[in-house]
């Protein structure tokens, strides 16, 4: 009886991929040497990814080509490309900028502002969101305030921020903080509201008390939403930072870009823009990477 049971269990469908793979491999190319067959299978399995990659590269090249021709022939069809730098000029400028400590200082300072502002936002907004999600009284007393402040764009805070903080540096960091704070808070709160109550009950049946339920159920259940909030928050943090730097900064990549316009150094405008884009991309990639690391169960 017992043996029959165990046998029956083994017959259950388990992991279709791992079962069918070796069979497929031998059937696909019986004559080819095994190494070559594996490489071929790899190409076959990843042909869609390879296609995506190739298409992406082609589309970027086409973009560069259009940019090149628009600036080469100084196209003027209502939109004016007369003073727009060509890709070659920007690349040449970029190469020089990489050896220029002043340019590096701008980038480093912007990154530092982001790091401090964003970190402060995360450290405050995540626990606050968790507590607001868990305790009705905290939620109902704080939520109205956040709802009133939330629609105000971080840039609108610039004059107020300059009044509030003793130095320019602190006020810019504060703007970045505000930009990322609300997306993180709202997403954390939303995640808390979606926690499956049956999981909470399951943990209670296993002897979990308040602190353990919070740590073992609410927090991990909300983590994917927290990371959504962090990603969105990081994006808004960059938007706010660049705006703040353009308005009130003396350093930073946003200031660099704005100053380039005043100094008629048109290549620097494009360089600053590209630099901002790359930094934004890198910082969200970093958050995604951390997310995958701390949430191994979401990996496919």
């Amino acid at each position, binding site marked *: *009886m017992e043996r029959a049971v165990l046998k029956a269990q083994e017959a259950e469908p388990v992991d279709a991929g791992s079962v069918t793979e070796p069979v497929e491999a031998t059937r696909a190319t019986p004559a080819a040497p095994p190494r070559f067959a594996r490489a071929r299978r790899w190409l076959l399995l990843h042909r869609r990814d390879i296609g995506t990659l190739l298409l992406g590269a082609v589309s970027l090249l086409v973009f560069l080509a259009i940019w090149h021709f628009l600036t080469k022939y100084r196209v003027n069809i209502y939109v004016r490309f007369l003073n727009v730098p060509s890709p070659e000029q920007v690349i040449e400028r970029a190469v020089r900028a990489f050896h220029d400590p002043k340019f590096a200082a701008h980038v480093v300072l912007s990154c530092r502002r982001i790091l401090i502002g964003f970190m402060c936002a995360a450290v405050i907004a995540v626990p606050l969101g968790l507590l607001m999600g868990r305790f009705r009284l905290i939620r109902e007393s704080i939520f109205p305030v956040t709802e009133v402040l939330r629609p105000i764009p971080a840039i609108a805070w610039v004059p107020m921020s300059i009044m509030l903080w003793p130095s320019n540096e602190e006020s810019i960091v504060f703007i970045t903080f505000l930009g990322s704070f609300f997306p993180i808070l709202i997403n954390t709160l939303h995640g808390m509201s979606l926690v499956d109550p049956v999981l909470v009950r399951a943990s209670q049946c296993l002897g979990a008390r308040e602190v353990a339920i919070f740590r073992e159920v609410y927090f*991990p259940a909300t983590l994917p939403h927290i990371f959504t909030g962090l990603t969105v928050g990081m994006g808004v943090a960059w938007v706010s930072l660049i705006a703040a730097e353009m308005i009130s900064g003396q350093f930073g990549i946003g200031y660099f870009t704005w100053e380039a316009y005043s100094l008629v150094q048109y290549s620097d405008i494009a360089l600053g823009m590209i630099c901002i884009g790359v930094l934004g991309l890198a910082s969200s990639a970093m958050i995604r990477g951390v997310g995958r690391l701390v949430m191994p169960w979401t990996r496919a």
Partner: protein
Amino acid sequence: MSNTGGTATKGLVEVEHFDLSYETLDGGVEAVRDVSIRVNPGEFVSIIGPSGCGKSTLLNAVAGFLKPTAGTVRVDREPVEGPSADRGMVFQQYSLFPWKTVRGNVEFGLKMKGRDKHSRELAARTLLGLAGLSQFENHYPDRLSGGMKQRVGIVRALATGPKVLLLDEPFGALDAQTRVIMQQILTNMWQRLKISVLFVTHDIDEAIFLSDRVYCMTARPGTIKAEIMVPLERPRQQAMMMSSEFLALRRGLMSLIREESLKAMGGEIGDGALQGLSIDLHGQSLADVI
């Protein structure tokens, strides 16, 4: 009565004169009325009834998730005050923690008890082995089939050594073949561990095949309509489901349940709907008419 050799001494569940009602805009709704049930130590008891009869409500009250409006719920003479690891629960939706591996899920209750890592690991591995899940201990739940998930659910509930195991339609979402295997696994575990089981289901065959005793509930407000002993010997075999004894029990329960299901449905679709089944089509087949 139960075939556990009389060694079980803990896990006496007593529900007495249990009432549950709640308020809505249209006034009070009586979900369960004056229900008294009992699970003796080591006994396997099922509650069966039409949907919405309050059988899950009753189970949740024993688990400690809700308080009765009137009446008492006691386990080993102690009134139930709230959920605890004494009463393990298995849910229909599996309810495994998706962020924990299979072993992490099984270890959870022991972790809450403050057991050290090594002994937790050992206990979890042993139980997973019994359920045929050893090779999946490091998998996350979303990679498992429904049957495997529920085996983990059962093992997780048993890991803390509860006095009573509560199961809320645990195999309702599984296909028929998997369901039969799961029933055998559950019986096997129950006999090895000698604990009391309270099992909620709407499947008559399942209730008879598994239980020592079956309570049949009425449609809302839920009351106990009948209590049926299942004298089939243990260990039970699949073939018993064809025996005349089994079929007689099945017929009896069928008619009890059918009556109640019709009553429950009557409220939803009106009395006329059931008469519709016998409309005279004047010798034409239904396909011709349509």
